């Protein structure tokens, strides 16, 4: 076991140490309004990380940067999964979405949409040579993979397809290639770009999805009129001076900023990268995600969770019926509901009653409450396992409640509680990967970003798994040491 671990650690270090550049935050002028831009960061060529520099770039990113330059905004990018992007706008975590948002009636009614900066049309994508999918009408009774809230999901549903919800086109394409779904409806630009950048020979465009093209816009909150006006003026100016057309041609070899921009010539795609190359450039960002988010999130949530657990356990033991009732209800709710749901309530739900926390804080709150719910029962039974004579002896030497607890009971309860609490800690470390759905760019999210961009699902997720595993093995070793230390006063 130890040799395996050493080998794995060496491997991880080797991959990290191989050349790759970390990204630097671009400096921006002070004094401009800060506009927070929600974008996927996993949606090439619109919003993705450059494999070389790791910097966020893409067509939509360049467009919104050009708009900001004209409008005098200071930008702050917030990377968000598509399904969470509109809730993030509602919850005022971001001010604008730059992520190929298509204009539709529903969005027109609920949000403030800018003028159109991209025109595209929908296509149906199938496995190469699958003759059962030749048109949009053929999707009736078939299964497609779509982002559940995207426009294309609605098109597919209207055509009679069952829609499997996925995160981003890369995942959809992987599902299609693996035969888990029958088709994808998406816009032509994304599909052609995917084919060019991954070199995939598994999927192909089968047909147009309907007559109508779609228009892509920036989405603001309905009442943000100042920002919308500034954006529209900037878009008009950028169209007039040819900036938009320039950005468009850079990415698509065609002008998609006008309705009839023609078909894209993507013959010089960005080129396919080797698995090793992808791993090498992703290892460092994943390591950063591990060290800067996953580990602090785990440590902080566990520490706070333990303190809460102790309080809940004491309340549960207390002779006050009200206190023990509240504690019992808390434990029951935490253990009786999914962690993901708890996380969503804290992150998306609480802002609706005015409690808005930054992602990291929200995650710490949700995870520490969850730890408290589980650890409270562990702590309670560990305290009850301390012999009654210890409490009596503490009383007869004059110790009060808190000294008795701190100096006599808890040190002894720790022996019983360490093994189950270690399990809680290991679970927590792995559960922090759920932070990826509340805008936290932690270890798992980094691997997702890289996988979406490169299509290297197996290699990247396995690599992320190695990171988790190594930390868990380290923690298990620490647990053994701690147990030995706590056993020093017990006859063996």
């Amino acid at each position: 076991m130890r040799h395996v671990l050493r080998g794995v650690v060496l491997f991880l270090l080797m991959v990290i140490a191989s050349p790759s550049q970390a990204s630097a935050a671009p400096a921006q002028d002070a004094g401009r309004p800060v506009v927070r831009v929600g974008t996927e960061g996993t949606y090439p060529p619109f919003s993705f990380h450059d494999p070389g520099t790791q910097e966020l770039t893409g067509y939509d990113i360049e467009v919104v940067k050009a708009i900001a330059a004209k409008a005098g905004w200071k930008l702050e990018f917030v990377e968000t999964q598509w399904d969470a992007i509109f809730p993030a706008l509602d919850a005022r975590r971001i001010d604008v979405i730059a992520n190929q948002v298509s204009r539709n009636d529903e969005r027109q009614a609920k949000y403030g949409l800018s003028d159109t900066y991209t025109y595209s049309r929908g296509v149906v994508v199938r496995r190469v040579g699958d003759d059962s999918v030749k048109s949009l009408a053929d999707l009736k009774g078939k299964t497609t993979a779509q982002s559940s809230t995207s426009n294309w999901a609605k098109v597919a549903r209207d055509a009679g397809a069952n829609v499997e919800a996925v995160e981003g086109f890369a995942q959809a394409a992987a599902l299609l290639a693996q035969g888990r779904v029958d088709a994808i409806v998406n816009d032509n630009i994304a599909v052609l770009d995917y084919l060019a950048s991954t070199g995939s020979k598994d999927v192909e465009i089968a047909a147009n999805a309907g007559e109508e093209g779609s228009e892509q816009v920036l989405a603001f909150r309905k009442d943000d009129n100042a920002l919308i006006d500034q954006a529209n003026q900037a878009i008009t100016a950028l169209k007039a001076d040819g900036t938009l057309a320039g950005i468009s041609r850079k990415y698509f070899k065609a002008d998609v900023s006008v309705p009839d921009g023609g078909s894209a010539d993507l013959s010089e795609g960005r080129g396919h990268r080797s698995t090793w190359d992808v791993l090498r450039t992703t290892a460092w960002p994943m390591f950063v995600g591990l060290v800067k988010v996953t580990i602090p999130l785990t440590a902080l949530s566990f520490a706070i969770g333990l303190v809460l657990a102790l309080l809940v356990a004491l309340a549960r033991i207390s002779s006050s019926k009200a206190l023990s009732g509240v504690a019992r209800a808390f434990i029951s709710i935490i253990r009786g509901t999914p962690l993901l749901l708890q996380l969503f309530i804290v992150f998306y739900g609480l802002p609706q009653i005015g409690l808005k926390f930054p992602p990291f804080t929200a995650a710490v709150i949700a995870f520490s409450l969850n730890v408290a719910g589980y650890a409270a029962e562990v702590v309670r039974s560990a305290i009850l396992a301390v012999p009654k004579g210890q409490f009596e002896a503490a009383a007869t030497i004059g110790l009060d409640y808190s000294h008795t607890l701190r100096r006599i009971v808890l040190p002894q309860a720790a022996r019983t509680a360490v093994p189950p609490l270690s399990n809680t800690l290991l679970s927590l470390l792995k559960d922090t990967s759920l932070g990826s759905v509340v805008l936290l760019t932690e270890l798992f999210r980094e691997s997702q970003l890289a996988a979406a961009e490169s299509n290297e699902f197996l290699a990247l997720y396995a690599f992320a798994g190695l990171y988790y595993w190594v930390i868990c093995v380290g923690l298990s070793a620490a647990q053994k040491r701690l147990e030995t230390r706590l056993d020093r006063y017990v006859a063996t």
Partner: protein
Amino acid sequence: MTEQNTEQARIRVRGLEKSFGDRKVLRGIDFEAAKGTSTVLLGPSGSGKTTVLRSLNVLETPESGVVGIDDVEIDFARLPAGKAGRREGARLRAQSGMVFQSHNLFPHMTVLENVIEGPVVAQKRPREEAVEAAAALLEQVGLGDRADAYPFQLSGGQQQRVGIARALALKPRVVLFDEPTSALDPELVGEVLAVIKDLAAEGWTTVIVTHEIRFASQVADQVLFLDGGVIVEKGTSAQVIGDPTEERTRRFLTRVLDPG
């Protein structure tokens, strides 16, 4: 004892009554003990002697009756519920130290740490002073060289002697012993009883629950024989053990002194 009548007795117990559920274990216990005396409680199991002892430091709370040690006195019938009552109980408890049947040493602390815990943490005495006093006490109970051992590294008799040092370190007005030798192997009983005898000779005020009749007759200034929650017979050891007047006392002594 009679010459101290103008001064109040160090321990004063009047009319203690206590039930566990609907079983009445104390039915009116009255006794006093003067400063510097040893009181031994004898009686069959279930007689209530341990409950009397544990009432003296409020590990048990009688329903009614009075316990006074020096200038702290509690009338249990009037003891307020909740925090105020607990504070009063703690004041009375602080008057005594206790030695338990199963020593109840803190297993995660060394011998020295066990002994200085009360003085330093509860009584807020300077640590150096407490360590010095503890060293002297450990010397006195014959464990001067085991200060850094953990309880599990000691024999049962040694553990019990640490328990005695821990109780004495509080400088209590009264030392309570709850069957201090019952859990010990027979060959370890002597060393513990010797220590307790020394304490009594030194002038500590002690109350001792025990089954060791010979020890009781040597150490006791006063013997209380309990049965069924009442004091059946009370007097010097020569009276109660040497020449009991009550039939119940005689039967008990015969059984204990000559088992089988």
